[in-house]
């Protein structure tokens, strides 16, 4: 049995009051409950405030490039499909710079757990609009206000038939729920997206902790997450009320399950035989 303190990492460099602290702590409690030891999983992240998370936790870590979290996680899973792989990204990281990888990781249904720290802003670079920023928001680089429609990550994922699509809020009331969803995601076989609403005290003065708190609610107990069209309909709710929970799930085989040669053991544990490969030379005679 692991304990909370087993996962104690570096001292976070986040601002006091940042929603990232809550996500970090919830993740630790999930790991304790699932009894995953630090060496049994890897967190892959990019660059951004949320992406610093693995340093503040004890785990195997690949803290790569801004936006490139998912390809790294995919390569890692294909080379070792026994490793639990969690991808941590920001909204700019994953929906902006890395948007193409999100689309295709979902299509692959690679068994990666993606947690997006969605603070609706570029935090680390000091407050530019992100794909999820409310239209009209004026920033240092959006002199006429953000002119693009707000990206709806849930609708996007559902349109791609993502096998697990959820939203949670990293706030006091929402934390037990976030924990529950994280557990579900980790236990789900296939690609899972959790869009986590996270307040940024320094740069997002619109979508504050209370802004979220006053709006979020949980999908009904009897909500059926297997109905794709209904899931899409619900994913469009955003405004006075913002639903949280598991919007859509779809039990289909993961990418790894479809690759015959890694069913007995992961690639990383497969012995290489020089002799066998040398036989290929005969083809050329």
């Amino acid at each position, binding site marked *: 049995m692991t304990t909370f303190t087993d996962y104690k990492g570096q001292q976070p460099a986040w601002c006091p009051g940042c929603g990232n602290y809550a996500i970090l702590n919830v993740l630790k409690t999930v790991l304790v409950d699932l009894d995953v030891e630090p060496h049994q999983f890897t967190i892959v992240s990019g660059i951004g405030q949320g992406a610093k998370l693995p340093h503040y936790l004890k785990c195997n870590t690949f803290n790569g*490039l801004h936006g490139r979290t998912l390809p790294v996680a995919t390569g890692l899973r294909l080379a070792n499909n026994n490793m639990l792989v969690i991808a941590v990204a920001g909204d700019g990281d994953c929906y902006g710079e890395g948007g193409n990888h999100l689309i295709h990781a979902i299509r692959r249904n690679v068994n990666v757990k993606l947690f997006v720290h969605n603070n609706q802003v570029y935090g680390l670079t000091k407050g530019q609009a992100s794909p999820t920023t409310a239209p009209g928001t004026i920033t240092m680089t959006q002199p006429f206000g953000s002119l693009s429609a707000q990206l709806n990550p849930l609708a996007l994922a559902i349109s791609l038939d993502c096998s697990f699509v959820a939203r949670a809020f990293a706030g006091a009331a929402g934390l037990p729920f976030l924990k529950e969803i994280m557990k579900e995601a980790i236990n789900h076989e296939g690609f899972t997206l959790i869009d986590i609403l996270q307040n940024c005290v320094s740069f997002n003065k619109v979508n504050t902790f209370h802004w979220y708190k006053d709006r979020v609610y949980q999908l009904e107990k009897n909500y059926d997450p297997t109905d794709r069209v209904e899931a899409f309909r619900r994913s469009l709710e955003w405004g006075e009320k913002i639903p949280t929970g598991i919007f859509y799930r779809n039990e289909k085989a993961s990418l790894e399950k479809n690759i015959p040669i890694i069913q007995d053991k992961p690639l990383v544990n497969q012995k290489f035989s020089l002799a066998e490969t040398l036989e290929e030379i005969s083809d050329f005679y």
Partner: protein
Amino acid sequence: MEYTIRIGGQAGQGLVVIGSCLAKYFSRSGFHVFSHQDYMSRIRGGHNYYQLRIADRPVRSSRDQIDILVAFDWETIEQHRQDLTEKGIIIYDAVACRQEISAHEFLNVPVTAIIDQMQVHKVMANSVIMGAVLGLMGLDLEPFNEIIGDFIHTETEDIINTNIAAAKTGLDYVANKFVGRFSFKKPGHGKKKQMLINGNQAIGLGALVSGCKFFAAYPMTPATGIMNYLAAKAKKHRLVVEQAEDEIAAINMALGASFAGVRAMTATSGGGFALMTEGLSLAGITETPVVIAEVQRPGPATGLPTRTEQSDLSFLLYGGHGEFPRLVFTPGTPEQAFYLTNKAFHLAEKFQIPVLIQSDQYLADSEWTFSDFATEKLFSEDFRLRGEQLKKTETYQRYAYSKSGISPLAIPGESNHLVVVDSDEHDEDGHIIEDAATRKNMVRKRFLQKLPLIREEIASPAFYGEKQPKNLLVCYGSCFGVVKEAMENLSKGHSIAMLHFSEVFPFPLPDKFDFVKLLAEATRIICIENNASSQFARLLRAETGLNCQIKINKYDGRPFTLDTLTGEIHDHLY
């Protein structure tokens, strides 16, 4: 004895089937073969050709003149007729070319008629033509019958037999024509078969025998052949071959797989490499082993997608932001490509760095013959810290300082040691830092300390010709074969030699073999490059301060050919 055959026609007419099948016929029969392909970036129509040179001694380049021209259409005749030797013959089908020519060098083989007569599918035309070519050379259908199946992708007996029959008809048709024109001694069946392999296959094979287990790439001509080769072997040799959504994903997937503990590779051409340079830099700071094959085509941008050039050398040497060690290999033959790919995987893992193998369309698609590959020379050391050895390691730090700058490369998950890598500057544990002292130490560890050790692994350039040459030819990569043959042609009556660089970065030291002295003492250094700006000459000067007085460049998207190059060099000789 040597002959050059050129098969010309439209894309999709089966030129490659005929060309490669004939190449195999001759290599199987123990001849030496060199082939190269000239094709357009389209799937049907246009004009392509496939050229084969066959000899009883090693051949390493293409000739300008041709002995046999197989013309699928009138355009082929118009474009290539003037390249015919005076004993040369043009095999054509008057029906297909829509006219009959009486001129002495024309041999009308009524392929269409033969096909109708035999009442077989028109693809059999290819076999008729191959038969005709062999007949013209006074050869028989052995070993055609053994190999034809592989080239038409079938094992069905009667399809094969019909093709053999078709070939026989073609052969018989020309049998008593131009008798002895190509007096051809076919080696007895004792004669050892030659292996026939092109540059892309050699890199693929090299990766396979080096234990490459993961390959991710995005299709891009002329690099795709490497992926095709490895994908075909995936099941049998248990590789994961993943087509990425783009090149950025390709290299990042390879890094993820390498982090997990398997040998990983990607391949692309110039434009794709451009998209990989950020990932290359990531490999640099995270010290993640990775092998990247860059198969060049003429740029900039899309350029000429199916043609050849050596214009990305500087980009490979300096691509990627920040400072980190890398190796750049530029093989000159499929054999070198095979060994250097193996060396690439070896050194990538030994030093935990990215290693780049640079090829080009010319090398990628050219088939060469070799008696065999000496496989005992292959590296097969495993530098990863894994299993028991890892488990009994007391403390582990991914970036632990060391005299060599090399830190232990552990497999994550195999022990309770944590493997932490970071694209930010980091400490020995792999965690983000910002202080000046750690930064300095890490730059030293990962870059300055490793560099001299990496450099020791670099082989000297290959040297051929006169020991104290007045004229010294310098080349790298795919120019090897044509420069070597040109040098041999010119060696009679001239003081000439050549240096070929296949391991260009870090630049070889003159300690083992003092090529710098040789260059300094030559009256004339002639640098031959398949590009417009003499990128290698620039590297040579940056490294040695020496200037190449003569620079021979070709930048029309085509490779150097033997006769033209020989002449051009000759004009510059001292």
